[in-house]
């Protein structure tokens, strides 16, 4: 008889209580996935119960974005209770490692992700936003496999040809894994100087890439100093006043409709 991993069944059990999961990924590093995932979770939290799961095993930064870096998850008989701030329940490997490096190889990464999924007691949620790490390796594949409820992906790029080339591979992978792509985010698309929009990081055609793969939602997010100021001043509520947050409203509405249809 083969040996059985008891985490598999309990992960499935936990995801039964979560209506919809949004995988925020890219393939490319440094495009702002964690920030986008955080803004999306905050946007959803105004109306829904939301969890934000940071699966970047090597560089988890969501606790820092939320100003929760010195907080430890509390225990319960049903697992660890994610710390909550601004109405978002947050879980991350960062809660366990402080500033230590996390030098993990393939199998250990898969195990660590499964462990986090198995021991977190989210309770019932409308949405779980999952901040995926860069790349299309173990972490992404494990996340797609074990996030067992209804799910969709929001993919993030910056407007450079190099970024689009990496993101296109990720789009193709998610299609093969049967994860619907709900939106493509063109992050740091421009900087507003008065009425003028200045493209700093490139002018690659994100709309064209979206069209090629039938992705019907493209959201342009500008370089917005309000976002970094909100994070660095540890006043995340200021994000609600940012243009970035307003633009993410389209995705929030889309997700709202998905959950309404499910109900």
């Amino acid at each position, binding site marked *: 008889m083969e040996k059985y991993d008891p985490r598999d069944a309990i992960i499935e059990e936990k995801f039964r209580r979560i209506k919809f999961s949004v995988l925020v990924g890219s393939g490319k590093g440094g495009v702002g996935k964690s920030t986008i995932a955080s803004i999306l979770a905050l946007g959803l939290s105004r109306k829904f119960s939301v969890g934000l799961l940071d699966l970047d095993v090597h560089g988890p930064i969501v606790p820092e974005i939320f100003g929760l870096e010195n907080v430890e998850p509390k225990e319960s008989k049903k697992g660890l209770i994610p710390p909550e701030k601004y109405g978002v329940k947050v879980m991350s490997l960062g809660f*366990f490692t402080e500033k230590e490096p996390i030098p993990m190889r393939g199998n250990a990464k898969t195990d660590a992700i499964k462990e986090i999924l198995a021991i977190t007691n989210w309770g019932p949620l409308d949405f779980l936003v999952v901040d995926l790490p860069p790349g299309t390796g173990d972490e992404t594949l494990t996340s797609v496999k074990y996030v067992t409820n209804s799910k969709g992906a929001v993919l993030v790029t910056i407007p450079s040809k190099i970024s689009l080339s990496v993101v296109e591979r990720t789009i193709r992978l998610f299609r093969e894994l049967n994860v619907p792509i709900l939106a493509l985010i063109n992050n740091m698309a421009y900087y507003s100087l008065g009425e003028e929009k200045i493209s700093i990081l490139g002018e690659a055609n994100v709309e064209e890439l979206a069209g090629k793969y039938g992705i019907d939602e493209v959201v342009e997010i500008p370089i917005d100093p309000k976002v970094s100021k909100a994070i660095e001043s540890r006043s995340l509520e200021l994000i609600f006043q940012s243009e970035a947050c307003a633009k993410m409203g389209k995705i929030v509405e889309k997700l709202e409709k998905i959950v309404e249809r499910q109900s």
Partner: protein
Amino acid sequence: MLLACILELNIYFLWYDVYVGVLFVLHEWSIAESIVVSSAKIAVGQGASKVVKVYVKVGELSQLELEILKTAINELKKEYDVVRDADFVFEVEEARFKCLNCGYSWGFSEVKRRINEIFCGSPDKECDNPIHYVPDLMNSFIRCPKCGSPDFEVVAGRGVYIAKIDFVK
């Protein structure tokens, strides 16, 4: 005066035990739940009407308190008909590590005191630590005892798995 001191010390140790106990107890309950739910699901999936025995291997690295795990399982199994009368048998699997830099192989006992020192302030004191929850975080805190490299792997005794289920159809 002496009696008062002894009483005070006893109360202190009692509180200490309760405190340490609470820290360790709850995680065992959540692991117990995953074992019970999995056993029931696997058995039902294989057409079982009643599970007789479940063999569980517990990796030393998970630092689980077996007595608490057993108590929790005996309580939780009552909620699932197919496993409610099952006997859960535990075997601790010794943790082994292998350095991918120098090839040195070692056991948990060789680094346990270092873990206590990092998290509990003393090599002789045991307490809650992140490795108890996510064993794969060993590489964040422990280094190869021979060459000091963080690049090592857990070759045995990492976590919990169900090795065998005896059931009747």
